[in-house]
């Protein structure tokens, strides 16, 4: 019965989403009519839309409380929680009459993974996306109530209603988690052991939460298109949403990379496969949008481009999810032939973004402004950065869908693997890093090339010194990673130098240097954190590519293995029971200068339910690099197959990712804290 409640709740979400769309549609139609109407002189008689903002209610006032704005999103959110709870309950009690439970769970699956399976299973993930979208809708409704509801907010809510309704419909049509099977199996097929991992389970929900944030950005931008109302207020309204979406998407990428690093047992952390590109695409475009939004907030320029990025970021997220779900680009050539069960998702994509891009096309010329800024200016730096990021995103998209495209043309099935992406993205990535170094130091509107040169002296010297040092010590280093390290030093020094300049070289207004830090504000700090994070990530990635060492051998108990500055002693393998698996757990003691520093326990797990073996590498994040150890089967000579990798500076990669996330979190948290401090209530 409980599953039926969930099913009913999901259907009600579809109904309420449609209601919300219909309720707020008059606003949408008025706005569209104003934008698309045949002649401007026709509009006043029909819509009254050309009256000044003060009369149409398109102004934020606290009197305009917007009754009726939040109840519908609230109801949808409650229903989504009911549907989620029903699905989780079905997983907890192992209700195998639901095919999704039977496919992703087993009576021996540990409880935490059963709950996790409810959000990562194919239909459960769709339900979760619906749930996060309703939550985002509610949060947006509350935000606009707090700020005073405008006509534009109503349009945005109507669009969010359309998004929720489309997603709920796609879930019901493509992958309904609550359909029961006629013949229930006695037990489930068990969770795919590859997915039985907390980090792996967190990835999906975080991605969908990020997409929900992007959907708000999309809706608010869509609503602002008619009449070209992408002004400072629009930009400010979207600031928290941008930071939340960016941080969540980045978090999903970081988790994905770390999981690949530990699961795949080979120390690689990015494979450029479809699911990874589906994460990367919206992140790249959100990063581009984030910079343009900041420009728009400051100077109200670049409106069409910013709007296009806002629409495209969500489009990329949606399309990526479709690609992954449809399995059109699965690993096997045979999988390429199955169309998958994501047709409704594709149709919904075409409807939503067809409408959005059409509206953009009609309104774009109205948005063009004549604010001038020179080629050398802060605006230009952010603009060029967003252009490069978009080119990178387009390249990733083409590489991802090209095999599909070729197959439609009747060509061979090909693979577009990591070599293509690396070769295609490096020529864009290197100039981007170069720009990233000096762009934050640029002045608004106009700056001089010579001044940049003067400011960047230190960073340029630093990067040259680093390149020379690395090159002298490691003659055989190939030029590309060397350039990567040099540019990382460039960005790092520039970011720190700029921070130093602003903290200590400015007059301190007689209130101490701490006041200077406060004046810089959370946005500057968050930017600095993110840029330094990128620099450290690039340096770590380049260095570990140059200096990586690998040993693969058949080890006997007590044997010691020398790698880099470390000495590993193999202590043998023990056969142990796990929660729902059996494991062969090996023990290694790590020595450095004859001192034991750590113990590592790589495992080979056997999951009898699916009959699958997985390797769990164990990693030690040392001072000078990661030690990545994995074990395999018994070798022919009686020893145990052991693979040890030493990846110098690899912790920098993880630290860099962490710094970027911290940067995002700073911006979100301080905003909340400051707001409460200032007003005592969460208002704008």
């Amino acid at each position, binding site marked *: 019965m409980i599953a039926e409640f969930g099913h009913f709740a999901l259907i009600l979400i579809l109904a309420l989403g449609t209601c919300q769309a219909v309720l707020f549609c008059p606003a949408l139609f008025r706005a569209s009519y104003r934008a698309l109407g045949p002649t401007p002189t026709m509009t006043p008689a029909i819509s009254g839309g050309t009256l000044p903002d003060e009369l149409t209610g398109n102004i934020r006032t606290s009197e305009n409380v917007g009754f009726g704005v939040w109840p519908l999103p609230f109801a949808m959110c409650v229903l989504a929680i009911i549907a989620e709870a029903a699905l989780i309950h079905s997983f907890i009690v192992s209700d195998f009459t639901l095919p999704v439970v039977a496919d992703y769970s087993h009576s021996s699956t540990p409880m935490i993974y059963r709950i996790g399976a409810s959000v990562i299973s194919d239909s459960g993930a769709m339900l979760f996306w619906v749930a996060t979208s309703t939550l985002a809708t509610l949060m947006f409704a509350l935000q606009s109530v707090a700020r005073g509801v405008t006509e534009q907010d109503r349009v945005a809510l109507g669009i969010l209603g359309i998004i929720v309704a489309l997603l709920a419909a796609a879930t019901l049509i493509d992958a309904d988690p609550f359909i029961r099977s006629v013949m229930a199996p006695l037990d489930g097929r068990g969770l795919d052991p590859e997915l039985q991992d907390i980090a792996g389970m967190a990835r999906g929900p975080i991605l969908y939460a990020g997409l929900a944030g992007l959907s708000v950005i999309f809706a608010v931008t869509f609503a602002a298109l008619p009449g070209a109302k992408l002004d400072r207020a629009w930009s400010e309204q979207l600031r928290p949403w941008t930071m939340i979406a960016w941080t969540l998407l980045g978090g999903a990428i970081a988790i994905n990379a770390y999981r690949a690093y530990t699961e795949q047992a080979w120390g690689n952390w990015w494979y450029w496969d479809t699911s990874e590109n589906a994460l990367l695409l919206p992140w790249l475009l959100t990063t581009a949008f984030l910079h343009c939004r900041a420009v728009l907030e400051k100077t109200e320029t670049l409106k069409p481009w910013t709007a296009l990025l806002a629409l495209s970021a969500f489009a990329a997220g949606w399309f990526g999810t479709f690609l992954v779900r449809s399995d059109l680009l699965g*690993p096997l050539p045979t999988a390429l032939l199955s169309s998958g069960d994501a047709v409704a998702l594709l149709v919904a994509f075409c409807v939503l973004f067809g409408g959005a891009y059409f509206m953009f096309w009609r309104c774009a010329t*109205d948005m063009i402004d004549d604010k001038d800024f020179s080629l050398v200016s802060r605006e230009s730096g952010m603009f060029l950065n967003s*252009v490069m990021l978009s080119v990178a995103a387009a390249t990733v998209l083409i590489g991802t869908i090209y095999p599909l495209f070729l197959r439609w043309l009747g060509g061979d099935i090909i693979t577009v693997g990591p070599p293509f992406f690396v070769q295609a993205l490096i020529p864009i990535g290197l100039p981007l890093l170069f720009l990233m170094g000096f762009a934050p130091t640029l002045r608004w509107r106009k700056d001089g090339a010579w001044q940049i040169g003067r400011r960047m002296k230190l960073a340029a010297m630093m990067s040259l010194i680093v390149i020379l040092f690395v090159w002298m010590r490691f003659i055989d280093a190939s030029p590309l990673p060397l350039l990567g390290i040099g540019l990382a030093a460039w960005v790092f020094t520039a970011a720190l130098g700029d921070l130093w300049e602003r903290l200590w070289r400015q007059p301190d207004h007689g209130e101490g240097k701490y006041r200077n830090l406060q004046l810089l504000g959370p946005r500057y700090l968050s930017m600095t954190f993110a840029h330094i994070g990128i620099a450290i990530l690039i340096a770590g990635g380049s260095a570990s590519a140059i200096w990586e060492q690998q040993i693969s051998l058949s080890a006997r108990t007590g044997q010691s293995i020398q790698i880099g500055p470390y000495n590993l002693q193999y202590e043998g393998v023990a056969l142990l029971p796990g929660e729902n698996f059996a494991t062969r757990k090996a023990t290694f003691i790590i020595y450095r200068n004859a001192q034991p520093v750590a113990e590592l326990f790589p495992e080979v797990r056997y999951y009898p339910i699916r009959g699958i073996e997985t390797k769990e590498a164990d990693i030690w994040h040392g001072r000078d690099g990661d030690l990545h150890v994995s074990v395999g089967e018994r070798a022919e000579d009686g020893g145990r197959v052991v693979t040890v990798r030493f990846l110098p500076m690899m912790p920098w990669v993880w630290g860099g990712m962490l710094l970027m996330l911290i940067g995002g979190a700073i911006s979100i948290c301080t905003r909340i804290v400051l707001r409460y401090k200032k007003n005592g209530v969460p208002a704008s």
Partner: protein
Amino acid sequence: MIRRNYSLFAAFVILLGLHAAPALAVNPDEMLSNPKLEERARDISQGLRCLVCQNQSIDDSDADLARDLRILVRERLVAGDTNEEVVDYIVERYGDYVLLNPPLKPETYILWISPAVLAFLALIAVIAFYRRKQREDGAGPKSLSNQEQKRLDEILGTSQDRS
């Protein structure tokens, strides 16, 4: 409860005994004794796709199919093939799908030139953008923007209706 756990454990142990483990990538017993040949084998393997994995090379994968391909690569090397001959041999049997780096041929021209074309288009667009800006800068007092013009039209239109 404890008893059940033990029985489950016993079942696992039995299953483990019966179960033939899949090979770990580049097992020591697969490796060639000639280090030069082995290095070439690894170079080649890193460019070949494991057919059942997501964009993993056979050097990276522990799938059975990847192991078979690794052994095949080494057999061809021992037989005296050059690197190109080995790759051709495998492509002949499995198609271009096994190559992680898509080969340059008429079908993939679009793929390979697209990043350059995209970058070029972006460059043109950016240059056009700045030229337009510059032209506007030079032209005396600013004319009304589209937005302002439209707004003006609207206001004028409204007043005409009322009169």
